[in-house]
């Protein structure tokens, strides 16, 4: 039988392969960036419209979005303050002074607009041209958003903490506790649509309301708040303690985030 794939097919196949090779070798980056810019702008506008639509729907459903956001913001601020205070207590006077400024002091924060959020991945409008690198931490209001996992010249892909593939080494701290000591160590991951704190030793003490904070391992910045323990799971017979964690922020309505770049020059 004659194979019906024509010369056109082979021609287009070769063009695709050439584009792929050109992109891999970064030969067509200037052209690609120029072509992508209108797409990025349109996607940002579409996402904004979608977020506005969602807030309108919530209004219709009787949820006072503004009041909710204000309360959420206050809870978030309180959680950050609690974490900062408990961290300070374990340090001596000299370190307290430094910690009181900010643990992010001296680091360059790159502001980035959110272009899209699909599943557990967020796309932002800053790429390697602006100094973004893979594995950089992304935050919003001192709360962890995710980590950069892919890049091009003008945009980057951020894996959110709530992504299925996300695994964050964390420590658990008790807000307002007698000291800023670490209650437990564990791994934060996604399981059946929920954030779950796993790998906590049975002799470690965790309870509802404890703060879950990055430990600083695996290229994550330390001491960035993620969420609070909502519910303990499993039994004492299990090898590890587990708990359900609620993030301190809703990632969907975010419009601006900050990429924590290297030290200030």
């Amino acid at each position: 039988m004659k194979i019906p794939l024509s010369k056109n097919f082979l021609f287009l196949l070769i063009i695709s392969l050439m584009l792929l090779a050109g992109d891999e070798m970064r030969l067509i980056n200037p052209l690609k960036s120029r072509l992508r810019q209108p797409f990025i702008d349109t996607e940002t506008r579409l996402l904004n419209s979608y977020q506005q639509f969602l807030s309108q729907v919530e209004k219709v459903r009787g949820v006072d979005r503004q009041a909710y956001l204000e309360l959420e913001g206050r809870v978030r601020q309180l959680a950050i303050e609690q974490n900062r205070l408990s961290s300070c207590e374990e340090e001596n006077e000299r370190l307290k002074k430094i910690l009181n400024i900010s643990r992010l002091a001296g680091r360059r924060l790159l502001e980035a607009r959110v272009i899209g959020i699909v599943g557990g991945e967020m796309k932002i409008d800053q790429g390697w041209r602006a100094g973004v690198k893979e594995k950089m931490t992304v935050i919003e209001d001192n709360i962890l958003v995710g980590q950069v996992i892919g890049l091009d010249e003008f945009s980057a892909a951020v894996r959110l903490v709530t992504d299925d593939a996300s695994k964050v080494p964390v420590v658990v701290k008790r807000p307002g506790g007698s000291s800023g000591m670490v209650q437990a160590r564990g791994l934060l991951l996604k399981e059946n649509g929920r954030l779950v704190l796993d790998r906590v030793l049975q002799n470690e003490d965790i309870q509802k309301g404890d703060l879950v904070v990055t430990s600083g391992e695996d290229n994550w910045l330390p001491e960035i708040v993620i969420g609070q323990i909502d519910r303990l799971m499993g039994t004492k017979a299990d090898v590890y303690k587990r708990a359900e964690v609620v993030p301190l922020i809703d990632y969907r309505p975010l419009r601006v985030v900050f990429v924590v770049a290297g030290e200030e020059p």
Partner: protein
Amino acid sequence: MSRISIGSYWMLLPILFLSLLQEAFLPINFVLLFFIVWASVSFQLADFIEKASQKIFLTAFLTGLIQDLAGDGRLGFLSLIYLLVGGFLVVYSRRFDSTRPWFLAGFIFIANLVISFLGGRPDLSGSFILAIIALMTGGFLSFFSGGGRIIKLKI
């Protein structure tokens, strides 16, 4: 290469729109679904196989290019994948009816799974949802074509 009529490439507009939506917030690859359903139907309805297949290949290439530009992947990657998908459809459609619901569902399921796997994020649930939508679309097409196969003399 035959002359290209702009009017016959209208389907690139919804593809552009869907690609933008997909990159902004839609978690499911509706572009793939739209392309495969469109390609299957247009091949079944075409009078001239060569002409129809050329149109499918060019649309596949442009669809991939649009999606590559709207997303953050390598330029040319999805063009290549969509061309292969189009190529398979053309080869299959010469012998069988590619608008059959079970074929559409299975083909879209596998195609989406392969694309998501090659993109580094295997998407089983998204593929399943797409397959269900494709199954319904195929049933809808069968219903409106009277449930019988379209018999045409392919030139």
